């Protein structure tokens, strides 16, 4: 602590006239919340809050397409590819918050910074991009190590940073001439071109952002002048603030009971984020008896009570925190097959499958784990226990903290027989979801708690990566979806659809108009939001 500067500052503040410290005009303020922490360094984005911040403070070459799978142009106006090289033409005249123009050099720098720091979504690019070069100020060319179709979609995870601002703020560090890549500085400042710029940052409690008036795409008529994105506010507090009109958009994690109560109050509406990217999977450990037998797994998928699960998630007749799935692919991704039948509980079929299974349920105990941080999952776990016991399995339910689960599931011996884990596609491409879950080439992670090793699945996954024709890719993923449905490495319990509570005068077009909705997590675009009052 530099005490002397603090004392000097206090003396200086005494001399300032008081009116400087009071607001001069009525601003439109948008207040939202999420769970902590809010990370504003775009190279360290991992969760929901981080993504919302990155989307609004930074821009990317492409953006998830509204109303369907795939991407649409943002900073890039057009692109060409032969599968292995990708060339993008950049929009001219885009400016960073600093006033510097956004050029192809910044794109090169941003990718290098992300890969060098090795955090966040760097794994989407590391080892895959052989070379990135600025052909001219508005043309950037990526050369990949091998043809890779999902690359285009992965670019929604590459926010472009202002290389000059970053370098001006670098400190000593381990990245050679780039110092620390301004890692320290970027944790509390931004170097973006997005519609909002950071005014103040406290990762534990809130990020305050203000409008960047020179943004190249403009704003909705009553777009917020200031956005307060707050972290870690308890559910009852949000509940009270909403009913007092002191909060605008709730987080996604309020219990259905609370949402229902709020929906009944005046001046409050519900919206749903159903971008179709998130599956809630009951991951079955396919490497451990008795679930290494596909018939035992199928028995469990028939015994699962889909109807009650959806009832638990129901808010009211119009809104629910989940919708039925038709296979491992959620509804917003390429390859989703709306013609497949819904999953339904059928105890007769379950017993039929069980008879074909080589294990005797009575002597095959099943462990079900539920993740401690998500209390609502206890209900699903208990529901499973009741149903699976009916098949004769001795069932044990264990509450396990996420830190422990994510470690346990990486080994077939310690992974529980069944654990509910939500996995979301992080880019608008089915590869970003299914490859991590089911390719036998990927080192085991929490996403692949099923430990599936299947030649046909592997083959289809690779085919999906190299094929660049969208129609052929769709056919590949449809077949993969069907194959996985029959293999039943997981019970595809439901597709997560977040329900947010919103104050009436606040318009969130992407969440209120189905044709404008994009991939989950890319819908809270502040410049689109209007506050009518």
């Amino acid at each position, binding site marked *: 602590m530099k005490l002397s500067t603090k004392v000097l500052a206090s003396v200086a503040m005494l001399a300032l006239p008081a009116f400087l410290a009071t607001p001069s005009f009525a601003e439109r303020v948008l207040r939202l919340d999420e769970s902590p922490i809010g990370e504003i360094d775009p190279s360290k984005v991992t969760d929901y809050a981080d993504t919302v911040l990155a989307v609004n403070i930074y821009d990317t070459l492409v953006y998830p397409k509204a109303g369907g799978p795939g991407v649409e142009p943002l900073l890039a106006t057009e692109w060409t590819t032969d599968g292995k090289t990708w060339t993008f033409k950049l929009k001219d005249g885009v400016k960073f918050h600093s006033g510097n123009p956004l050029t192809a050099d910044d794109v090169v720098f941003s990718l290098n910074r992300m890969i060098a720091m090795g955090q966040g979504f760097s794994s989407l690019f590391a080892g895959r991009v052989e070379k990135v070069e600025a052909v001219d100020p508005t043309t950037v060319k990526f050369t990949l190590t091998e043809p890779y179709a999902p690359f285009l979609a992965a670019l929604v995870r590459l926010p472009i940073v202002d290389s000059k601002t970053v370098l001006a703020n670098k400190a000593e560090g381990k990245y050679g001439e780039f110092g620390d890549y301004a890692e320290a500085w970027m944790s509390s400042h931004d170097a973006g071109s997005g519609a909002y710029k950071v005014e103040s940052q406290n990762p534990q409690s809130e990020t305050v952002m203000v409008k960047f008036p020179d943004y190249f795409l403009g704003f909705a008529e009553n777009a917020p002048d200031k956005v307060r994105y707050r972290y870690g506010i*308890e*559910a*009852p507090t949000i*509940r009270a603030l909403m009913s007092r009109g002191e909060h605008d958009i709730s987080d996604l994690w309020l*219990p259905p*009971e*609370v949402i229902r*109560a709020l929906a009944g109050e005046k001046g409050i509406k519900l919206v749903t984020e159903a971008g179709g990217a998130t599956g809630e999977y009951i991951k079955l450990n396919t490497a451990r008896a008795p679930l290494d037998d596909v018939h035992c797994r199928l028995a469990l998928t028939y015994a699962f009570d889909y109807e*009650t699960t959806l*009832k*638990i998630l129901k808010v009211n007749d119009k809104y629910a925190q989940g919708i039925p799935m038709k296979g491992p692919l959620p509804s917003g991704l390429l390859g989703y097959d709306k013609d497949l039948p819904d999953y339904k509980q059928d105890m007769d079929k379950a017993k039929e499958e069980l008879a074909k299974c080589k294990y005797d349920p009575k002597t095959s105990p099943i462990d079900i784990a539920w993740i*401690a941080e998500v*209390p609502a999952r*206890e*209900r699903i*776990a*208990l*529901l499973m*226990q*009741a149903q699976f016991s009916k098949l004769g399995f001795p069932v044990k*339910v264990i*509450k396990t*903290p996420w830190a*422990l689960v994510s470690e346990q599931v990486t080994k077939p011996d310690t992974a529980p027989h069944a654990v509910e884990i939500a996995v979301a596609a992080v880019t608008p491409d089915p590869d970003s979801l299914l490859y991590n879950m089911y390719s036998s080439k990927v080192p085991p992670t929490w996403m692949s708690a099923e430990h599936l090793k299947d030649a046909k699945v592997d083959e289809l996954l690779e085919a999906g990566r190299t094929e660049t024709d969208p129609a052929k890719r769709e056919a590949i993923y449809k077949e993969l979806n069907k194959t996985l449905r029959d293999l039943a490495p997981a019970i595809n319990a439901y597709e997560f659809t977040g329900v947010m509570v919103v104050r009436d005068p606040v318009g969130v077009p992407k969440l209120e108009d189905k044709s404008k909705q994009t991939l989950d997590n890319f819908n809270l675009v502040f410049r689109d939001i209007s506050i009518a009052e």
Partner: protein
Amino acid sequence: MSEPGSPVIAKRGGSRAVAAFFGNPLSVAGLVIVVAIVLLALAADYVTPFPEHVGPIGDFAAMSAAPASPYMLGTDTMGRDLFTRIIYGYRLSLIMAVVVLAIATPIGVIVGLVAGYRGGWTEYVLMRITDVFLAVPPLVLAMAIMGFLEPTLLNGMLAITAMWWPWYARLIYNVTRAEASEGYVLAAETVGASTAHILFREILPNCWPSILTKMTLDVGFVILMASSLSFLGLGVQPPTPDLGSMVAEGAKYMPDAWWLSLWPAIAILLVVLGFNLVGDGLREAFEAEG
């Protein structure tokens, strides 16, 4: 352990103490609360309407039902009877308190006796160690320990025990220092009694009133501490019913499902209040005894 005070008082022949205790309506009220809670907890399997609701079961037709027959206090978010779970929560709380005190008290008493009687380096080292523990707010230390360990019943008791014994060490140390220069101790030393004899036969009996009073009060405070830990998610894990986590989980549904956290909160208040009243009564009774 359920009601530690009265038989001991009777044995010491303190009729004045007994009279003083029962002459105070507040102490009697406390005793009634404590006895009622202990009996309910012991007989939980027989007095609760839905003993099976303790376990990992759910009745999703009756989720978060408001108080009404047959669920007198309503149901939790799994559709389980709150009254049943509160009574079993009491059982768990009392077990924790008994175990914690049964371990912490002897450790603290021995450290206090030895430090107070031996003096010198022994005293300095033992009391500095005690100070280390006392210098961290108890909840902070228990939280830190729980943060490193897995949140289970056993670890919870361990964490609370680790921060509880120093208070007994402090208390007994002070009493011992005062007693060590009393005539009866000097007399025992003169006739060559062993240190163990002096500590446990001469000095310890004079510490009993302080120890008993403190233990009675502490049953309440251990329960308070355990519920605070579990309120923060660092205590006993579901489906085991625990009063602190019931308040914490229920608070998420305030005010719409107020019964979820209100009843467990009142339950904590009642049990702590009961043991406090009894403890206060004991202290006054011992003072009356002189």
